[in-house]
């Protein structure tokens, strides 16, 4: 069977691959959306923090023999802790200023992080093996699905919806959302808002690092791996609506699918399709698909 001249098996596999990429977009844009929502900081270092997650996992494996499953927990904690340090020492001073300052600071930090890793490890990248438990693949009939790719989707969805649940359905989440709306009032009620903010930034950064560890066995671990991805992720956040949690998740997955389809029908356009959609969304709904106007 063919759809628009493309065999349906190929189409099915492209949709699945799109969903896998969408999972990365979802985790990364979720982290950005949370940080922007509460801190009003456009975290340009997000791509670098994703890269650092992958590198921490690689260093842990090659230097200390720490396996993938432990790295999945340790790398986000290490990179998240670095994020906490940044928030305490630098970002904190910028909250009252224009967005531009936060953007410039985090952009500068991203360049520094990438530079340090490039200087240390070169640009060609390091290989991170797929964990033994997830090696191999299954034949789905229409495609051969590497088990690890399937794991990416499951892990990403679990983390995304876990985060959504925490923010929308728990008491801690209620404080967070209230802190976003009216920090003075929440502070007056006896809640430590600065601590809440530090925690949020750390968590957003940890999400990026988590995505980095997930990506390590699939892509070469390379100092520029984040900078290639971050621009697309920003577009995803803009399309979903700045600060909208569910918007970021759904848009990430959806755009992954659309990008996958573009790669079949017009591969040359697959790098720009996200931006074309961004332009259209900004014209029609300037606040984004899920944003509040």
């Amino acid at each position: 069977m063919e759809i628009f001249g493309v065999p349906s098996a190929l189409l099915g596999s492209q949709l699945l691959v799109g969903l896998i990429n969408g999972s990365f977009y979802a985790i990364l844009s979720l982290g950005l959306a949370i940080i922007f929502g509460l801190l009003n900081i456009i975290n340009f270092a997000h791509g670098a923090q994703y890269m650092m997650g992958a590198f921490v996992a690689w260093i842990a494996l090659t230097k200390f023999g720490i396996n993938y499953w432990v790295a999945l927990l340790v790398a986000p904690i290490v990179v998240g802790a670095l994020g906490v340090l940044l928030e305490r020492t630098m970002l904190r001073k910028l909250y009252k200023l224009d967005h531009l300052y936060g953007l410039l600071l985090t952009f500068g930090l991203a360049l520094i992080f990438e530079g340090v890793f490039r200087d240390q490890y070169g640009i060609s990248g390091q290989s991170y093996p797929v964990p033994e438990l997830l090696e191999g693949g299954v034949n789905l009939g229409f495609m051969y699905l590497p088990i690890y790719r399937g794991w990416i989707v499951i892990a990403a969805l679990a983390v995304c919806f876990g985060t959504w649940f925490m923010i929308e359905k728990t008491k801690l989440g209620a404080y967070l959302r209230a802190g976003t709306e009216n920090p003075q009032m929440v502070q007056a009620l006896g809640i430590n808002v600065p601590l809440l903010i530090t925690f949020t930034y750390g968590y957003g950064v940890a999400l990026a690092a988590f995505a980095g560890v997930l990506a390590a066995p699939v892509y070469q671990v390379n100092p520029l791996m984040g900078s290639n991805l971050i621009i697309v992720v920003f577009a995803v956040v803009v399309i979903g609506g700045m600060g909208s949690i569910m918007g970021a998740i759904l848009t990430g997955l959806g755009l992954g699918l659309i990008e996958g389809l573009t790669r079949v029908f017009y591969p040359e356009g697959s790098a720009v399709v996200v931006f074309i959609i961004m332009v259209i969304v900004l014209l029609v709904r300037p606040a984004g698909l899920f944003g509040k106007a």
Partner: protein
Amino acid sequence: MHMKKLTTLACAAAIASLSGVANAQISDGMVKIGVLTDLSGTYSDLAGSGAVLATQMAIDDFIAEAKPNFKIEMVSADHQNKADIASTKAREWFEREGVDTATELVTTSVALAVMKVAKEKNRIALMSGPASTPITNEQCNDVSVHYTYDTYSLANGTAKAVTKQGGKTWFFLTADYAFGQALEKDSSAVVVANGGKVLGSVRHPFPASDFSSFLLQAQASGAQIIGLANAGADTTNAIKQAAEFGITPKQSLAGLLMFITDVHSLGLKSTQTMYLTTGFYWDLNDATRAWSKRYFDKQKRMPSMVQAGQYSSVLHYLRAVKAAGTDEAGKVMAQMKKTPINDFFAKNGQIREDGRMIHDMYLVQVKKPEESKYPWDYYHVRQTIPAAEAFQPLSESRCSLVKK
């Protein structure tokens, strides 16, 4: 005011005439070599700081061998793979800093831009890193040398060997810019000429990190060989993901431009048995091993063909300056073209009128992990492609300098 200027000029002239006695025709008594390369981006491992080191080694070796009566200085800069940055820097070097030659110039767009500035300012462009054939064809000029390799020689080596060994049906994964398209075009021609068939191709954006969609299309084509017409991180990611999706070893990959740095980064497990064409391998013979060991001691990596070619081209340039007794571009170019190149990199290498340096190329096959006996022991050399066959023949040249 006028008077003062004139006096200054006269003094300057007098001083120049006095100090110029020793080196009549070396401008400012100094030869200045600029290394314009990618120090921070995708190509910084295969060129980058290693090319700067190779240049310094060439200068040191030349001083030791020839004891020249002129000074040699090196400057280097990062062109970030952007043509505008490169041409601005080259212009500044030529106009204000007395740089005599801009060297390395990885990335085709950078090379083409700097060649134009060099022609305008009558300085020399020595290119080791860039790959595309237009450098010595449509865009050729008489102050440029394309030294190490090009897309024609790569296709001619790898695509020919793989097709002859029974890889008759091909599908190309091509980086969607000038270099990738040139490589696909040159390779397709070679495949067809050797009795193979091209089933299709897919153009991916440059740079890309996820190749799964494109690889699935290549898989669906059923071609025996998937030709990778890309470079650097694109190639390594594509190879890694092809194994993941179970495409290899059922279908085989042919890396049309791969450097030893790529093999090193991916490891032998993912690259074993692949064919590739290279202008240099550190473990060819005693001379290449000796030089590479010196390089390794400083850089902690073995040299890529670009870095080895960089050394050879700079040394050849300096020898020509000494022999010609001048650093004027035209005379040095004439000397360089007239003298055969003999060092660890090239045997009887020769620079043709289109600026192409022709030398032997090597078809190599990546070793299996168990065949590799010591660090960086990566290749079986399967065939030496003689200089005369490795590069585009002058009869096919589209360069206006070639008289037919």
